[in-house]
């Protein structure tokens, strides 16, 4: 456990340093920039709230990825699944808001979001299970298709005729996810995401399904030999994984944007970052929770650095990418350094 802290700490520290160096090369003062980062993403109510807003879709997607990766289902299609969930839930939001009583409406919205993402992911799952199609490629390419579908929907059939941009009508205020922290944009979607953490923890470690998922992930042949229906387990895994990403899409629409827009996750930001979050959290729900908040802070901090110190916004995506690689490196190198250290110590005579 101590090793974990050391390698993570080292990796993150070096990431801070290298990013700082790059910031300096670009002519800005890294210390000033980092001051802005901390001040406006952690040290203020508004800032930390914003960090949590950013963390919400990351947390949901990453929880989905954590399950998938436990089964060695390399889902990189969160982006497309998120978009499909957003689309499905928006449809419900726009068309059924007035037709259903609130206590039916909201569960429907959540269900739609989940189903949208689950179906998209399940499609890739079917392709893998029935046709042996590599899920890395299928889920990735389906991202593009999913995003194009949403772009089309917001540009033509669902477009708000009065709007200047490609987006749908705004959802009725009664349909919006309520804000839960005054002074911030933090919405109930965060609560949903947090609730998923213990839920998934129980699912993965206490239920039969969780056992099956882990078995399939650790040794496919043994799992099969032990009588587990691997195909079914994989399909269920893909559905849950995609469903959570779909919920993330729903949360973004109903809690932040209040309408579906083309290109709303800013060019593949969220879902790919979620991969990093899942990995940093070691595919464990609690770890993912912590990692999501951490990365949410980094992203918000990146925005702060841009506003305050003129550092380009893209710094946070470099930052998170380098954190992943550096932590990976630290984890791989530390045992070797340890051995080297031991060997070079004088032996007792």
């Amino acid at each position, binding site marked *: 456990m101590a090793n974990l802290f050391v390698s993570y700490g080292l990796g993150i520290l070096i990431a801070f340093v290298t990013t700082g160096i790059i910031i300096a090369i670009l002519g800005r003062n890294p210390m000033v920039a980092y001051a802005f980062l901390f001040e406006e993403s952690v040290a203020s109510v508004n800032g930390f709230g914003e960090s949590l807003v950013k963390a919400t879709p990351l947390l949901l997607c990453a929880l989905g990825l954590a399950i998938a990766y436990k089964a060695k289902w390399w889902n990189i299609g969160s982006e497309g699944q998120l978009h499909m969930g957003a689309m499905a839930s928006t449809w419900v939001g726009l068309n059924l808001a007035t037709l259903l009583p609130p206590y039916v409406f909201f569960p429907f919205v959540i269900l739609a979001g989940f189903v949208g993402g689950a179906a998209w992911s399940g499609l890739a799952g079917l392709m893998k299970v029935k046709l042996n199609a590599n899920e890395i490629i299928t889920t990735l390419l389906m991202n593009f298709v999913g995003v194009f579908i949403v772009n089309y929907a917001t540009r033509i059939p669902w477009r708000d005729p009065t709007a200047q941009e490609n987006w749908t009508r705004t959802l009725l205020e009664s349909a919006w996810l309520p804000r839960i922290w005054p002074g911030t944009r933090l919405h109930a979607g965060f609560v949903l995401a947090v609730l998923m953490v213990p839920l998934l923890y129980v699912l993965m470690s206490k239920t039969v399904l969780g056992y099956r998922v882990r078995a399939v992930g650790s040794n496919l042949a043994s799992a099969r030999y032990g009588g587990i229906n691997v195909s079914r387990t994989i399909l269920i895994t893909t559905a849950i994984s995609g469903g959570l990403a779909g919920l993330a899409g729903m949360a973004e629409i109903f809690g932040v944007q209040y309408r579906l827009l083309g290109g709303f996750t800013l060019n593949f930001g969220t879902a790919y970052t979620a991969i990093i979050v899942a990995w940093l959290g070691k595919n464990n729900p609690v770890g993912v929770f912590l990692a999501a908040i951490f990365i949410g802070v980094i992203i918000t901090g990146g925005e702060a650095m841009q506003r305050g110190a003129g550092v380009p916004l893209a*710094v946070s995506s*470099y930052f998170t990418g380098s954190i992943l690689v550096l932590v990976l490196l630290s984890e791989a190198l530390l045992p*070797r350094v340890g051995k080297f250290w031991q060997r070079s110590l004088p032996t007792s005579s």
Partner: protein
Amino acid sequence: MAEIITDIFVITLFAAGIRLATPVLLTALGELLAERSGVLNLSLEGIMTAGTFAGFVAALYAGHSAGIAVGMLSGLLFGVLMAYMSVTLRADQVVTGMGLWLLGLGLIGFLFRSTLGVQIVPVTLTELQPVKIPFLGDIPILGPILFRQNMVVYFAILLVPVIGIFLFKTADGLKVTAVGENPLAADSLGVNVFRIRYACVIVGGALAGLGGAFLSLEAGVFREYMVAGRGWIAIAVVIFGNWNPYRALLGALLFGITEALQLRLQVILGYGFPVEFFYMLPYVVTIGILVLISRRAGPPAALMVPYKRGE
């Protein structure tokens, strides 16, 4: 409709298809080498992005040749890092690849916005020009398609049989396959597993960097996300080429021609169909072919398995 399918249409379609296939082909050939030696390099998308950007910037300052060289170099550097982490450190190849991909994406996004920046009128440079081969370029039909292409395109096409002969007819090539199928056996016969894997991954990285550089140099402009999934498509191409360079060429061509077709269909069918469905076409076709081919896929047995001496 029939009046559109003229000679000129078909000729320019195929010529464009070859040109558009080249980035994917180069990257796929490189990845084919790496995977044959047992290493799955998922950072290709990041490497291509790096090559696209680095090559473009270098070309802005020092011309096309510099762009190509720098593109390859940036890919090579990524390849070294990937090789180090997966072969020496034996880190999980999937996570490492994805990590390097995201790192590359972030790094280039960061560098791009800090240097060239997103402007109303993007910075451009003169595109790579086609080079017509003297006699062959005048053959009807085949001439314009095959022999009036870019230098990089010629290189890519020639690389296919070169890699084919290397892999299947030379001792070193057979060693590569051996290392990918059964590194323990290869090692016991004196083959340096680590050196071969390093070499293949590094060459793979350099080729991907070249593929990326070609993308921006040929277009004359750099746009963020212009790689648009080609790195992943290259991996798909390796799979449905069944790890064979000649089949990979077919796969890359399929992608390139679909891309060329999609562009032309937009113009022809334009007002009838939403443009997004045309954009989707290459991706859907790639998924479709992948799905059809994957049933009898035959990856190298030791793919993704790090090799440790003494196990």
